[in-house]
């Protein structure tokens, strides 16, 4: 176990930090002797004109994906709690996005959102709306990848929240109903608070998964046009592998910033969970 952790977690992490604080060129990557450059790579990354948009896009992408995935997932979970004919089949259908390989679902979204031949614009055309350049205009590209990511993320939220709901004893609802609480009140006053631990873990998992989303964006827009849908992950990849000349140092620096972001979010979360108990 320790060997496994060391080989597959500690070493890559240390190596990534090592890459980010050395001035690696392709020559020194192969021949050795990269000079120690301290925080130069980080400084270069932060002062790069792409940094601002990439950070903003990462935050917008992550938060809006989380909010919509969670809200829709929860609504569906509550909906499926009432058993009705075919509810099992329907629920299984909602899992399809989860089962599809990301390359398939992302390519399908890219195809549907194509400006000229996509089915979405065709439907818009039928109802008299001007075509939208979903993937090729700076105003829409980020929204398009968020839509695709939300669609892919709903099943995960649905499944976890649904099983969370199952764990809430029916008696609590009955007691609230007897006390005169209507459906809306029962949801907000009983279900939602009782679901809190499950919600919290769902959101935390969602946060980490979403922060590192790369494939969907890369397949659909390559982070473009320009930097309009570039996030820290796609930018890191572009630096390290996306051009003919790999820039491992800055690429590693960006991914370290990303790790830091996830760590901070995780710690904030743990602290807030702690406060809640004390309250």
């Amino acid at each position: 176990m320790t060997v496994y952790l060391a080989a597959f977690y500690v070493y890559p992490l240390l190596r990534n930090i090592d890459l980010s604080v050395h001035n690696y060129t392709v020559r020194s990557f192969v021949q050795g002797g990269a000079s120690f450059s301290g925080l130069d790579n980080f400084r270069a990354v932060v002062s790069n004109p792409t940094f601002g948009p990439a950070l903003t896009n990462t935050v917008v992408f992550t938060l809006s994906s989380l909010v919509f995935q969670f809200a829709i997932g929860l609504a569906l979970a509550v909906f499926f709690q009432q058993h009705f004919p075919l509810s099992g089949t329907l629920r299984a259908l909602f899992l399809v996005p989860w089962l599809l390989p990301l390359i398939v679902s992302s390519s399908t979204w890219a195809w549907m959102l194509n400006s000229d031949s996509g089915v979405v614009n065709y439907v818009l055309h039928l109802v008299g709306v001007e075509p939208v350049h979903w993937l090729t205009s700076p105003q829409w590209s980020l929204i398009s990848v968020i839509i695709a990511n939300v669609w892919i993320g709903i099943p995960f939220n649905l499944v976890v929240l649904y099983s969370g709901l199952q764990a809430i004893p029916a008696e609590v609802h009955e007691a609230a109903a007897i006390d005169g609480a209507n459906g809306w009140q029962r949801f907000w006053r009983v279900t939602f608070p009782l679901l809190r631990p499950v919600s919290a873990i769902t959101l935390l998992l969602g946060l980490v998964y979403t922060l590192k989303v790369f494939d969907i964006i890369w397949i659909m827009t390559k982070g473009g046009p320009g930097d309009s849908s570039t996030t820290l992950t796609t930018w890191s990849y572009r630096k390290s592998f996306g051009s003919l000349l790999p820039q491992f140092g800055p690429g590693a620096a960006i991914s370290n910033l990303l790790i830091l972001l996830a760590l901070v979010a995780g710690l904030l979360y743990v602290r807030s969970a702690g406060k809640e108990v004390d309250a």
Partner: protein
Amino acid sequence: MRTFVTAPWRAGVAATAASLVLGLAACSGGSSSSSPSSSGTAAGSAAGGSGSTFVVWDPYPQFDATSAWWKLVDSCGASAGVKVKHTAFDTTDLTNKALLAAQQGNSPDILIVDNPVVSTLAEAGALTTTEETKADVSSFSPNLLAAGQSGGKTYGVPIGANTLALYYNKKVLSAAGVDAASVKDWASLNAALAKVKAAGKKGITFSAIGTEEGSFQFLPWFWGSGANLTKLDSPEAVAALTLWTDWVKQGLAPNSVINNTQTTSWQEFASGDYAFGENGTWQIANAKKSGLDWGVIPIPAMKGGNAPAPTGGEFVTMPVQKDTAKYPVATKVLACLTSGDNALTTDTTLSYIGASAAVQTKQSANPDLSVWVDAVKAAKGRTSDDLGIKYPKISEPMWGAFQAALSGSKAPQAALAAAAAAAASALQ
């Protein structure tokens, strides 16, 4: 209600958070280094000289052991007295694999890589020069060989070349009353596109995606305007970008070009609605299968004549080995793969144009290929003009510029000015 949030649960969340974040670190850590596994197994056994295993890497995963290409490699190995261990990689994967192998001292004996990568690997000190290995480069066309040369040294030989030209749809053009032969410069091309649009068809499709692929497609127009990669914001460069931008603005090219790869652009052309499609030699086979009545013309330069298009295609290189005694065998295999009839066989298999005058002359006899032979003769490597590893640092801001201009977030002039500044700071 909240009191049941107990300590063990909290600890669980904290542990999950920590391990997930570490998992994330492991993923991004992959961006750098560590896994020598595949390169290790592929090259690990190549220790001895002739008689032992001889390792060849190429970026042609579409071929397997039964293909003519693998058989040729095997027979070249056999005639040099070695048994070949052949591994194919995805082309984008191969650069990193080659760098890692060089770092760990287990490079293949022969490495076949995309031409603009040669200067990157040469800069890394991973490749031998033809002077060291005494490989004969005299028969190769200088414009093609230049992509593998920097600082007066040659780091490999081209196996063949492909490049870009304009495919046209005869049916669409004749319906619009356009003769393809009338397209001689940008003005006549614009006139043709306007007529096609007036006839209710679509003009031209190309790939302007924000990657090296987009830069590859932009270069014929960029160089065809007379612009030079060392000055991205010259008036000529602005003219080239304005040409592309106006096509999209005026509806002569679809908005989807911003996100098109060369494959999706080909699919648009193959739909039969487009008059022109900018694409490469490698689509000839698809064109024949498409059922379209098609032809090919060279990409015109701004003021007439053929624009220099960038060369695609791979170089056969010999990576640096600890045991220099292995070089003579590798030199023999390299010569075998790239000379005379073998080169013609290879280039036919790969749909490439030959890299030597002898092969090009033979291919000119084929009417399907003669336009492409001319296009390759006019073409030049992206890393030519002694740009070497400066090219990637110019290409990235360049694709940023055409993405910004085509999507309307910047005017061509402003986009190129920003790109020139970014390239200048990257080159410092």
